[in-house]
């Protein structure tokens, strides 16, 4: 059995971010604008001067940050025309496309990291998307909302209704999020597709990482989002 608890992951302390002050400020602006608490953690999992593909890169904030601060060769895929236009104006290389259909076009090992933030739950075929990510990139970095969080469980258990939270604000009949999972579910899928978790973090509502030595069930209950860096078991 592979190690099961978060403490088993040898990841660096998150308190010592490698980002410069200006970068941290940029991230801060991004976070306050979009409520994207996961991006700082994602950025911290990427090595300098590597090749990165951000799938669903939005207006390109993360890509720009990575390219300017880390000298990363940053590429993106984005569905919305506005997002692509914003990215192109920033000088980023971004392709209008869809995670579900267009990852298949990328050759093997084209990138060091393939990033998918807050999008996995909106894909039609999350498993295939994840497998493509690990085929295209040496590492995959995924962040997603944890459907096992106690607030969500509470809404279903006590109110008997599909949950609506600050993070997940869509009603069930009008949501892009069609494949929710819990942190435990995600870890299960990673095992199933033969990948390995290199780093994993659960963050709470304020974006603070949960303590590492807590057991899995605590992560699954109190983590609002999971951020994981994966790699293939065999290359």
């Amino acid at each position, binding site marked *: 059995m592979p190690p099961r608890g978060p403490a088993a992951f040898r990841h660096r302390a998150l308190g010592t971010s490698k980002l410069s002050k200006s970068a941290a400020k940029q991230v801060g602006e991004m976070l306050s604008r979009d409520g994207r608490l996961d991006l700082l953690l994602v950025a911290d999992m990427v090595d300098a001067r590597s090749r990165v593909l951000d799938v669903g890169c939005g207006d390109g904030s993360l890509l720009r940050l990575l390219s300017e601060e880390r000298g990363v060769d940053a*590429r993106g895929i984005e569905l919305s*025309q506005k997002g*692509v*236009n914003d*990215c*192109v*104006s*920033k*000088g*980023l*290389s*971004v*392709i*209008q*496309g869809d995670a579900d259909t267009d990852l298949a*076009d*990328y*050759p093997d090992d*084209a990138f060091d990291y393939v990033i998918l933030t807050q999008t996995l739950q909106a894909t039609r075929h999350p498993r295939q998307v994840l497998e493509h990510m690990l085929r295209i990139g040496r590492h995959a970095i995924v962040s997603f909302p944890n459907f096992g969080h106690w607030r969500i469980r509470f809404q279903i258990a006590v109110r008997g209704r599909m949950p609506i939270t600050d993070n997940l604000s869509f009603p069930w009949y009008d949501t892009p999020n069609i494949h929710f999972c819990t942190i435990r579910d995600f870890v299960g899928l990673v095992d199933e597709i033969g990948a390995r978790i290199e780093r994993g973090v659960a963050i709470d509502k304020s974006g603070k990482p949960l303590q590492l030595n807590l057991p899995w069930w605590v992560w699954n209950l109190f983590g609002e989002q999971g951020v994981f860096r994966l790699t293939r078991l065999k290359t």
Partner: protein
Amino acid sequence: MNVPFNKAGQSDEAEAPHSLVAHFGAAQPLKMDAGVLLSPLTVAYQTYGTLNAQKSNAILICHALTGDQHVANTHPVTGKPGWWEIMVGPGRPVDTDRYFVISSNVVGGCMGTTGPSSLNPATGRAYGLDLPVVTIKDMVRAQAMLIDHLGIETLCCVVGGSMGGMQVLQWAASYPERVFAAMPIATAARHSSQNIAFHEVGRQAIMADPDWCKGRYIDEGRNPTKGLAVARMAAHITYMSDEALQRKFGRKLQDRLAPTFSFDADFQIENYLRYQGSSFVDRFDANSYLYVTRACDYFDLAADYDGSLALAFKGSKTRFCVVSFNSDWLYPTAASRAIVHALNAGGASVSFVDIETERGHDAFLLDVPDFISTTRGFLDAAARARGLPPSRARDI
């Protein structure tokens, strides 16, 4: 403007263009794919803006099938504005205050660059069909000769739509180190069967016109305007989407309240196409139409690279921005995606935008705000990366 005419009643732009011209003599023949050295070669071109001291701000614009070098000036034959004034000019995305913009008439054209209506020095008559069949690569070779002639090593960007986009792709494949950025628009890396089919209809219309005289109409003092007009009409349909046609014309009648039970142009769309056809023949040469359509048909960039388009762009340092229009059924989005796929596989830096518009293939010539802003953004970013100073602030 006093436009001289030749024997066939055509404007004499082919022999005496209202343009800058570069002459290449016997020492600099054009090596054509047909296996022939073409000499002498004349390239007619226009420039806008000023080349900077580092010669780093040049943008080459490649024109489409029946376009020409008159991108941003009044057309010498039609008196109409240049075909891309919406994109090119002071403060426009292709900012002539910032960039040195070059556009040249393609080989095989009829606006001053050597083509079938140019004088063949060997015979003292127009080339007609004696001109070897021209390819997109030949057009690009001639452009490269012009760029050499202008003393420019690397182009800041090569831009073009439709057949112009094919030239952009060919530039990027043939001269990767001379192309800093490339913007192929509404184009394809090879002509599809359907593309060839439509072109063949046009060519057959021209060749079926008795005034075509087996291509010798200039000698005969005739001009196959009917055939050329039909060719243009058929082609023009492919430039517009069904949706746009429906919206613009629908089944509306032309200056009448009821159908006339005749074969007059009862419908507005008929009238419109007839006008497009008849105005086209004033500015275009029928044999040129045969040559440029053939050049597109022969275009298959991957064929030169063992059938792999990715190999054509392997290791390219050029920054690409591929643009398609979702209602373009002539060079559909899928054709652009194939280019993007190959660029990705070749490891090139590529952006891709599929612009949502109902205006069809012709959208690249029209005021489509998302397209214009994409172009501006991409060129700005390329200029920054190339170290060009920012545009001067201007009042809008």
